[in-house]
């Protein structure tokens, strides 16, 4: 199935080596992009500026299970670890951004908006589920009645180099959400690692005019039929290795119909309301605003920060929080992801990346909760 729909533009698939990847990083920088990629730091793969292939986590793999994430040395692949604690929303929808400053003036007060975001990123190693997550945030921030102008500016400038997954974590469930493990659209270039090491070979597919233009500046050669079949087999094997599933059929209706299901009490007894899942989730978009006054009283500013529906303040109206209990907060988060997101944005809010499962300190598993809610009805 995957093989059949893969690589429909055979003539455009090419092969690039490690030296070519190095040239790619340099060329993206020369074209004005801040190049960001996976880097091993503090025992995890994080997303940071990179200058060379040397910065990539070559020879490391991740072990991910509910509530647990470890890196270990294994093999000689350049892009083995899948998704880590951060996602690309870190850059497109940053955790903190100042919105404006107000100063006392003759007119009483003058507002100085922050200049429109100018960051021009190139993301290296974006997984299929993450491309789906970016599409979700595009829908939220750019395709509603109001647009977040800073998100839109960063998004318009971004160059995306996808990496098709050559392995999966135990927590991955992208096939259930129909988001991966192969990137089918939404990238400028997509890589599939055919072999690792110093002589690594990557199949490279072109997804945009900007991608085409970049490839023309890189040392590549045409892919053979065997290369293309090998790439298809790698992704097919990854997909076959994924056993975690979520049955999404009628789940949106089921979640809405069961606000008092006993399973909500069960999960609430385990949930710490720590908000980790919402911070790690690549689609969670909620923000709050914080006002700060200068000590001299002459100016004040407002900043936007990520917020989480797991906090007490989140639903506060005069008289107290609407969602007082952990049960109500977990129910809001999960129902939003898998049910009401469809009403609001005509798509799922979950892309199957598994971050919420891994980074939950008590290992609450959204797929298990969905199955339990379905079972005991």
């Amino acid at each position, binding site marked *: 199935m995957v093989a059949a729909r893969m690589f429909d533009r055979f003539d455009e698939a090419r092969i690039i080596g490690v030296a070519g990847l190095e040239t790619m990083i340099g060329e993206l920088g020369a074209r004005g992009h801040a190049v960001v990629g996976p880097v091993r730091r503090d025992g995890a793969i994080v997303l940071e500026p990179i200058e060379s292939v040397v910065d990539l986590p070559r020879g490391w793999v991740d072990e991910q299970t509910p509530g647990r994430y470890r890196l270990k040395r294994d093999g000689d692949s350049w892009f083995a670890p899948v998704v880590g604690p951060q996602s690309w929303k870190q850059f497109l929808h940053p955790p903190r951004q100042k*919105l*404006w400053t*107000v100063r006392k003036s003759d*007119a*009483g*007060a*003058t*507002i100085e*908006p922050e200049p*429109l975001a100018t960051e021009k990123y190139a993301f290296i190693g974006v997984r299929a589920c993450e491309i789906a997550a970016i599409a979700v945030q595009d829908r*939220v*921030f750019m395709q*509603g*009645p*109001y647009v*977040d*102008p800073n998100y839109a500016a960063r998004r318009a400038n971004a160059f995306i180099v996808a990496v098709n997954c050559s392995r999966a974590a135990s927590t991955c469930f992208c096939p259930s959400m129909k988001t991966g493990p192969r990137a089918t659209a939404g990238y400028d270039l997509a890589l599939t690692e055919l072999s690792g090491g110093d002589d690594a070979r990557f199949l490279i597919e072109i997804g945009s005019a900007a991608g085409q233009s970049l490839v023309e500046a890189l040392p590549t050669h045409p892919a053979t039929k065997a290369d293309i079949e090998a790439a298809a087999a790698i992704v097919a094997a990854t997909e076959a290795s994924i056993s975690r599933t979520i049955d999404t059929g009628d789940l949106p209706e089921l979640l*809405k119909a069961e*606000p008092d299901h006993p399973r909500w009490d069960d999960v609430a007894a385990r949930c710490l309301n720590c908000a980790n899942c919402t911070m790690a989730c690549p689609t969670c*978009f*909620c*923000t*709050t*605003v914080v*006002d*700060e*006054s200068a000590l001299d009283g002459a100016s*004040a500013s*407002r900043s*936007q920060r990520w*917020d989480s*529906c797991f906090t007490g303040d*989140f*639903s*506060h*109206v*005069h*008289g107290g929080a*609407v*969602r*007082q*209990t952990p*049960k*109500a907060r977990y129910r*809001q988060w999960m*129902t*939003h992801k898998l049910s*009401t997101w469809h*009403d*609001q944005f005509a798509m799922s809010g979950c892309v199957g990346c598994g971050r919420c499962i891994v980074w939950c300190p008590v290992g609450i598993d959204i797929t298990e909760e969905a199955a339990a809610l379905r079972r005991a009805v």
Partner: protein
Amino acid sequence: MFDLRDPMVPAVARVIRSRHETADVWTLDLELVDAVWPGFSPGQFNMLSVFGVGEAPISFSGEPTDNAHIVHTVRAVGPVSKALCHLKVGDTVGVRGPFGNAWPMDHARGRDVIVVAGGLGLAPVRPVLYRLMADRRSHGRVTLLYGARNPGEILYRHEIEKWRTRLDIDVEVTVDHATADWRGHVGVVTKLIGRARFDPADAVAIVCGPEVMMRFAAKALADSGIPEKEIYLSMERNMKCGIGLCGHCQLGPLFICRDGPVFTQDRLRTLMATKEL
């Protein structure tokens, strides 16, 4: 009014009048300093900022045809609303808006209109009452049912007394707790609904107040025969943006700011019946 390129940036307005309405309620008249106010529709709201303190969603409570003044009635309950209430004439505030949808004013033409308000909920429907009275002959029977906690908390008291002298609208006021000089109804406002005169088959209900009051009022109106899709309620939730981007005001599938704040009872009944949704 302001640059839609960045809807999170407010315009600066100045307080040109502040009225102390009741113990903890003030009405502010604002005027934009360096921008043209586009006007509002009854039911919409502004995000009002006190610089260095924060921002809160506040409904319009003024005359909808008056584009010179932006009028908001505020109860001092939280840090932002307290700061708003303490503003003096000449002070500056930030204004973003108007946001949200509106009460069904066009739809109400030719029909009986019953307005049910509780407490500060009279403020967001005052523009509706101004419209109804300015265009009285376009409507059937018009009724205002208003409930306050006690006679001292009756909002816009002089206006209500003036409206009560009119012979073309029914105005009934009730209080939860009467004082010795109170001559009107005592009890919850929903009890007045059964006595109101309207043709349920051809009436529009406009309800605003605390959520529990709206829940009971909507039920009483539905029990009186008004279809649920003709019962309009204005919902309140935490809001940080007013434009559907911050996620705070969700009520099930709804964003109160983007899809509301005005909704019909057929969409709200199940959602309001679910605790802590």
